[in-house]
């Protein structure tokens, strides 16, 4: 997919990408930036993947990580809490809410976890997700990195399955680190 809109700020980019993807999901507009980024990245990841038909609700896991937790919305909530604390804003001050929003959108009820690292930790993510497969807790996993703070943001998501088609890449530490590095350039 190609989508370039020079001159947009971070918030504008998220809303423009939502329109570009042709999503009709009114809840999107209530979300904080981290959730918007995670929802959009998942939408693009799953497009044409045939995912929804394949698995039971509890067979798909979501394992995400980032650097800044929910700090973007924490700073906004901290500025408003004295004048009028908003429950609609406060609920987003936990990084795992992005997993909750993805789970609601796609009916994923399986294993979920949110981790914070100073940078993408391919070794840990591969180990954790492979462990979920080996324990037969899941048949499919959405995993990776979703980070948002101020004007800086980055998402890198992977769809991991046990069955494979010709174009798939083996889910190894080396491969996912390479994906992450390529994605950063």
């Amino acid at each position, binding site marked *: 997919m190609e989508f370039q809109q020079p001159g947009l700020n971070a918030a504008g980019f998220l809303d423009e990408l939502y329109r570009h993807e042709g999503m009709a999901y009114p809840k999107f507009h209530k979300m904080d930036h981290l959730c918007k980024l995670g929802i959009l990245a998942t939408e693009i990841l799953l497009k044409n993947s045939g995912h929804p038909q394949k698995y039971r*609700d*509890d067979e798909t896991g*979501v394992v995400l990580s980032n*650097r*800044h*937790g*929910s*700090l973007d919305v*924490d*700073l906004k*909530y*901290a500025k408003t*809490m*004295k004048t009028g*604390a*908003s*429950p609609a804003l*406060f*609920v987003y*001050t*936990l*990084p*795992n*809410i992005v*997993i*909750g*929003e993805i*789970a*609601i959108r*796609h*009916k*994923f*009820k*399986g*294993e*979920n*976890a*949110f*981790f*914070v*690292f*100073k940078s993408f*930790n391919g070794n*840990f993510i591969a*180990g*954790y997700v*492979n*462990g979920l497969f*080996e*324990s037969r*807790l899941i048949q499919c996993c959405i995993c990776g990195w979703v980070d948002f*703070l*101020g004007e800086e943001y980055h998402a890198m998501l992977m769809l991991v399955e046990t069955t494979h088609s010709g174009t798939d890449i083996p889910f190894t530490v080396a491969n996912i680190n390479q994906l992450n590095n390529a994605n950063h350039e």
Partner: protein
Amino acid sequence: MRKVFVAADNIFSPLGKDTFSNLSALKQGHSGIRLHQETISENPFYASLLPPDFKAGNPQLTPFENIVFASASDALKDQQADAASSRTGFILSTTKGNIGLIENGIPDADADRQTGLTESAMRIAACLGIQNEPIIVSHACISGLLAMITGMRMIQSGLYDQVIVSGADLITAFIFSGFQSFQAISPNPCRPFDANRDGITLGEAAATVILSSVNSGGAVQLSGGSVSNDANHISGPSRTGEELFMAIRSALRQAAISAGEIDFISAHGTATRYNDDMEARAINLAGMGPVPLNSLKGFYGHTLGAAGLVESIVSLHSLKENILFPTKGYSEPGTEREVHVIKELRSAKISKCLKTASGFGGCNAAIILENLN
């Protein structure tokens, strides 16, 4: 797959700075919950707050970091476990870490460096002499259980031989105002599972378990754990309890035991109407309605990132001492589905415990603790 044992533990709460003093206080029926008049709220409120001197210590560390350090150091003190070993991992469980610094008005540009969880975890790890990069679990109110499950999985897979799992949160104006905006805070000390329950009481604590592949004698086993998501609402629990039940079923399967073998349940029991009803439904779906159950929130309040750890530690000592702790604040049944709430401290021959938690974002977690001795 390798077995995982709880080799050592610490609870650092208003009831005491180590597990022993906490258990003594619980046996005497003491609660950390008091009426407070503090700057974080205009009106007096009930909460279980740490005295200021509990949060001091190393001036290089923040109050949050000091309580984590105090808890982890105490757990490590009788341990042969080498914190500096490449075979030792460190997991930090917290919902808001150093959020108190943000409220005090530091500039946005410095917020990341000063409050960031990764920096905070690295400062704590350095003080403890831990070499490996800390793993931070920030997953709402299931953080403590998810951190234990993560540690268990890392030992099972052979990545580490021991994992230090610490959790903590402090109740600041940020957290208090947020729960208040949800009208979730009870005007009285909370009453889990009671007919007249009307909301949560917040609490402060730090807690640590040291998980190990080795049973050096008498250790309780962490034999299974699983996580699920309601996929229903980000701030309200499932209406059916079906998804918490899924996590319970999956944890039992991993431990290779049946629901009928569980001797008692340490529930999340926040004392909101919806949470306790949802839990009661899930427990009945699992066929565990008659199994004795407690919530420890009446002793500690809801300690957020520490809750799963604090309650697991009390539960594993229940197994070791063959005693069941009551649900402080409970007097009359009042959940839509019936559960067997423990009202008084009593002895019982017990060996297997189910511990559950649920939180914002629709998350649920369950673990199984077993005393094989």
